[in-house]
C-alpha cells in the first residue's frame, strides 16, 4: 500500500520534501489571505482554487523531462519576445502600464512567461559551451537578457524587468562569470544608475525612491504606505495581535494588504515568532532547491535549478525588504503568499521544473 503510494509519487515526478514545503507555504497563504481580505470568503475561495491550479501546473511541469525544456527554450524565448513587441504595439492599457495581452479568451502577461523562459534560455545557451563561461558568450548572453528586458521596461514595468534580468544574470554568474567581470559590471552599473535616473525614469518611479529615502517627509501621500506598513509590522511585537485581529489591515490603514503588503499583515498578526516560522519555511524550500541543483546531472539542469532558486530568494528579499522599509516600494508580491494567481502559478511552475530536474535524473541513469 505504502509502496504503491510511493510509486504513484514517482510516476508523478514529485520531489516530496519540496512538495511539503510548497504546500506549507500555500496553506500559510490561505490562512493569511482570509485575514488580509477582511474575512472575505469569496476571495479566499478563489485563492484556494488558484492554489489547486498552481499545484496542477507544478505537477505538469514536473512531469516534463528537463531535456524538453532545454530543447524548446529558444523557441519559447523567441515567442515571448514577439509577444512583448505585440504588447507594446497593441497592448491592453491597464493601471497605467501596458502589460496585458488580450487574446480574446485569456489576458496574460508575456513577461510572466519570461520569468521561467529567460533562465531556461540562458541555461540552454551555456549548456552548449565549456564552463567557466568565456567573455564573449557572457556578452552574448547579457544581450539576450537585456533585449526582452528593455521591452518590459518600456511597458513600463520596472519591477518585473528587474526580476527577469536578475534571473538571467544569476545563470551567467552560476556559469562561472569571471569575478573581475562581475566587479567591473557592478562598477558600470554604478556609473549608469545616475544616467538612468535623469533620463529614463518616470516621475512616479522617482517618487518611490524619494519616499523610500524619507517616508516621513510625506506621511499622508507617497510615504503613507510604507509608514503604515512599518506600523503594522512593529505593532505585531513578539507574538502578534492574533489571527484576524490585526488592526492596521482590518481597519484598512494598510494599503494593498492582501497583495504586495501581505507580509505586513502576517507580521502584525503573528509577530516576530511568525516571521521566524515563515522565514524557516522559506529557508527549507530554498535549501531543498539548492540541494537539488547541486545534485543535478548536467550543466543545463544545474544552472536552471540554481538560478530559479536564487530568483525565488530574490523575490522574498525584495518584497520583505520593501514592506519593512529596507528597499524602495516596487510592485513585487511576496512569493507563494500574496493574493493573485499569476505569481503563484509561475512560481509553482518553477518548482515543477526543479522537481523535474530532481526526479528525472534516476530514469536517465538506466
Amino acid at each position: 500500500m505504502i509502496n504503491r503510494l510511493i510509486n504513484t509519487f514517482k510516476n508523478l515526478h514529485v520531489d516530496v520534501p519540496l512538495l511539503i514545503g510548497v504546500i506549507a507555504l500555500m496553506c500559510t497563504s490561505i490562512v493569511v489571505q482570509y485575514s488580509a481580505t477582511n474575512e472575505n470568503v469569496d476571495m479566499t475561495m478563489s485563492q484556494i482554487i488558484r492554489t489547486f491550479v498552481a499545484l496542477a501546473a507544478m505537477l505538469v511541469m514536473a512531469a516534463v523531462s528537463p531535456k524538453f525544456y532545454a530543447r524548446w527554450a529558444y523557441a519559447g524565448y523567441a515567442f515571448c519576445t514577439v509577444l512583448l513587441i505585440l504588447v507594446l504595439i497593441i497592448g491592453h492599457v491597464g493601471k497605467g502600464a501596458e502589460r496585458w495581452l488580450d487574446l480574446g479568451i485569456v489576458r496574460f502577461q508575456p513577461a510572466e512567461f519570461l520569468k521561467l523562459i529567460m533562465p531556461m534560455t540562458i541555461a540552454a545557451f551555456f549548456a552548449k559551451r565549456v564552463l567557466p563561461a568565456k567573455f564573449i558568450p557572457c556578452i552574448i548572453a547579457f544581450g539576450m537578457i537585456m533585449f526582452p528586458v528593455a521591452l518590459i521596461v518600456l511597458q513600463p514595468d520596472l519591477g518585473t524587468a528587474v526580476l527577469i534580468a536578475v534571473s538571467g544574470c544569476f545563470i551567467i554568474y552560476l556559469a562561472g562569470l569571471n569575478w573581475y567581470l562581475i566587479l567591473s559590471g557592478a562598477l558600470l552599473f554604478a556609473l549608469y544608475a545616475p544616467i538612468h535616473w535623469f533620463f529614463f525614469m518616470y516621475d512616479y518611479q522617482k517618487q518611490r525612491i524619494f519616499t523610500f529615502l524619507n517616508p516621513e517627509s510625506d506621511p499622508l501621500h507617497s510615504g503613507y504606505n510604507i509608514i503604515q506598513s512599518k506600523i503594522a509590522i512593529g505593532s505585531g511585537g513578539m507574538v502578534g495581535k492574533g489571527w484576524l485581529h490585526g488592526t492596521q489591515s482590518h481597519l484598512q490603514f494598510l494599503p494593498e494588504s492582501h497583495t504586495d503588503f501581505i507580509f505586513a499583515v502576517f507580521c502584525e498578526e503573528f509577530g516576530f515568532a511568525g516571521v521566524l516560522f515563515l522565514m524557516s519555511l522559506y529557508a527549507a524550500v530554498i535549501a531543498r532547491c539548492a540541494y537539488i541543483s547541486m545534485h543535478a546531472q548536467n550543466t543545463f539542469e544545474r544552472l536552471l535549478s540554481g538560478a530559479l532558486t536564487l530568483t525565488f530568494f530574490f523575490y522574498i528579499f525584495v518584497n520583505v525588504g520593501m514592506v519593512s522599509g529596507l528597499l524602495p516600494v516596487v510592485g513585487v508580491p511576496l512569493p507563494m503568499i500574496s493574493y493573485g494567481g499569476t505569481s503563484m502559478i509561475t512560481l509553482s511552475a518553477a518548482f515543477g521544473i526543479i522537481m523535474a530536474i530532481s526526479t528525472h535524473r534516476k530514469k536517465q541513469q538506466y
Partner: protein
Amino acid sequence: MTFNFNQDPSRPLQQRVIFRDNIAEANLFKGRILIALSVVILMTVALIYNLYDLQIVRYESFASRSNSNRIKIIPIAPPRGLIYDRYGNLLAENQPLYEIEVIPEDIDRGKTVRNTLIELKALLDLPFEEKDIDLLVDKIRLGKKFKPIVVATKLTEEQIATFSVNQYDFSGFYVQPKLKRFYPFGSTLTHALGYVARINQKDVEQLERLNKTKNYAATQDIGKQGVEKYYEDILHGTVGYKKVEVDSTGRVARTIEFAPPTPGKDIYLTIDINLQKKAQELLGETKGAIVLLDPNNGEILAFASNPSYDPNMFVRGILSSEYNELLNNPDRPLINRVSQGGYAPASTIKPLMTVMGLNEGLITPKTQFFGGPYYSLPGSKHKFRDWRRWGHGWMDVYRAIEISCDTFFYDLAFKAGIDNINKYMGQFGFGRHSGIDLYEESLANLPSKQWKQGRFKQVWVPGDTVPIGIGQGYWSTTLIQLVKAHAILIQHGRNIIPHLALNYAEMAPLEFAINNPRQKYVPPKETAVEVTNKGYFDVGMKGMYLVINGPEGTGRRAFAGTKYKAAGKSGTAQIITIKQDQHYNASAIAKEHRDNALFVAFAPYETPKALVGVILENAGGGSKFAAPIARKMLDAYLLDPAHPQIEIQDKKAEKTKK
C-alpha cells in the same frame, strides 16, 4: 568527417564536439552556488535583524502609533443648564435642531463641491442664493479636512427624511442633531439673561488662557452676555467623550469606552418674569430702564432696559445686516441701561446727602434753612438756580426732601466739600461695582479732586461741588448703583448686593474661583455706610415718605390711593446746561436734549419689601413721568394676585377697620 571520434556508431556524428569535464563543471557550480547561498544567508539575517528591530526593539513606539491610528477620542458636549425665573418659568431652554454638516475630506471627488451643493439645494429646497453657495464652497475648500462644516440648519422633519433617503448621493454630508439655546421670552429679558452664540477666536483665546479648552472640545456656543456669560462655567457642565475605533477613512468601527458628559447645572434667577414683562410693557417706546429689587437681600425681580432686542438672533447666527442695524440704531439697544448707562442721579440722592450731612454734623433734623430762588457761593455772582423759580421759603431737612429743594442741598454740598461727598457716596456704592452678577457693568463717575485733575488737568473749585449736591455736575451713576444706594439707606447702612441668581451666595464665589484662579474671593463687606446714629437713615427715609405722603410731596399725585404706604424720591436730570439768563422750556428744545426723568421708590414704608428705580431718557420731570411707572411697578409686585407680598398688612388694615 573522416575522423571518427564517435565511439558509439548508433549515435549520429556531432558537428561540433565539446570537450567538457563534468566533474569540474559541477565543482565550479557548487562553488558558485555556495557563495551565492552565503550571500543569501547574509541578506536573510539582514532582513530578520530589521524585523527584530521593528517588532521587538521599537515595539512600544509602533504599538502606540498603531493605537493612535485606530483609536479616536470623540468629545461629547454637555447639555447646557437651563435657566428659570424665581417661580420656575423657563427662561432659557435647549431645543433640538437638525443640521446638515459636511466633512470636506469625505466629499465625493467625482463631483465638484459646487454642483453637490446645488443638488442639495434642489433636493431639500434650501434657501441658498448664489452668494451663500460661493461662501460655502470657500469654507469647504479652505477649512480643515476633517472639521465638519454646517451646510444647512433648522431642517424640518420632511427635509431630514428626504435627505436620509438620498444620502448615498452626498458622500461626506450627514444630518447632525444638536441642542440649540432658545429664549422663549425673546427680547423681554435680554439685558439680564444675555445669550449664547458661536465660540469665536476671542473666546478661544480666553478659554486657552483659563485652561478650559479641553472642556469645550465639543461645545459650539458660549455665553456672550448677561447671566449666560457670568455663570458660563456652572451652566456649561463637563465634557464627556467616546473612545472609538475608526478605520482609515474615519468611519467608526466600534465604541471602546464611553464617558457621558456631566450636564450643566440649572440656574434659578431672582427675576419674576411676569413683573419683568410688566416693566418692559411700562417702558413701551421710551428709552430707559427699570429695576425692582427686594431691599432686604438684593434679589432683582425686574431688570428692564429699553429698547431691547431678540437674543435668539445671536444664537442662530446674526446676519451682519441685522447686527449693523442694532449697532447703528440711535436708540442703542445693545447698551444695558440698568448697569451700563451712566446718568446724572439728580435729586434722587438728596436723602443720601442728608445722611452725610447729619453724620458730619453739618445739619440736624431741626436745622432751619431759607430756600430762595437761587444759591450763590460767598463772593460769587454765579446763580445756582432752584427748580422753583420763586423758591420755597423756610424749611427743615424733611421738607427739603419732600419738595426737593435745590438750594438746601447746594448749601449742604458746599459745606461738606467734595472729599466728604466722595467718601460717603462711595460708601453708598457710587462709582464702584455694585456686585451684580453681570460683566456688563460700568462704574459711571463719582467725581473727586483727583478725578478732575486726571481727566481735565484742572483744579477742583467750590463751584464744582455745588451742583453735586443735587446729583448733577460731574456726577453720573448707573441705575443699579442708584438702587443699591437706596437699599443701603433702607437697610440702615447694611451692604446690599443686587443680584440675579437666586443662590448667588454659593454661585458667585464658585464662578470667581474658576475665572480668577490666582485670586482669593473676598466676600462683600457686611456694612457699607458707618454712621454714629442709625437714626440718620430714618431722617432720609422719612423725607422720602413725605415725598409721597406729604402735602407738598413731589410724588403725591402719582401715588394717590395706594393700598400700601410708599416712600420715594424724584429726580429730573438736565442734559444740557441752561444759560444764566434762561429758563428750561421742554417744548423748545430737541427731544434728545430733554431732561431725564428718575424716580426711586420703596414700599411698604415700615417693612420695605420692594425697591424700584426708574430712569426715562428725555422724558421730562421725574415726578410727572417716572413716578407713575414706579408706582405701577410696586402695585404689580406687591399686589400680584399670584404672589401677594403685603397680605398680612391688608389683614391688619381690615382688623383695624373692624
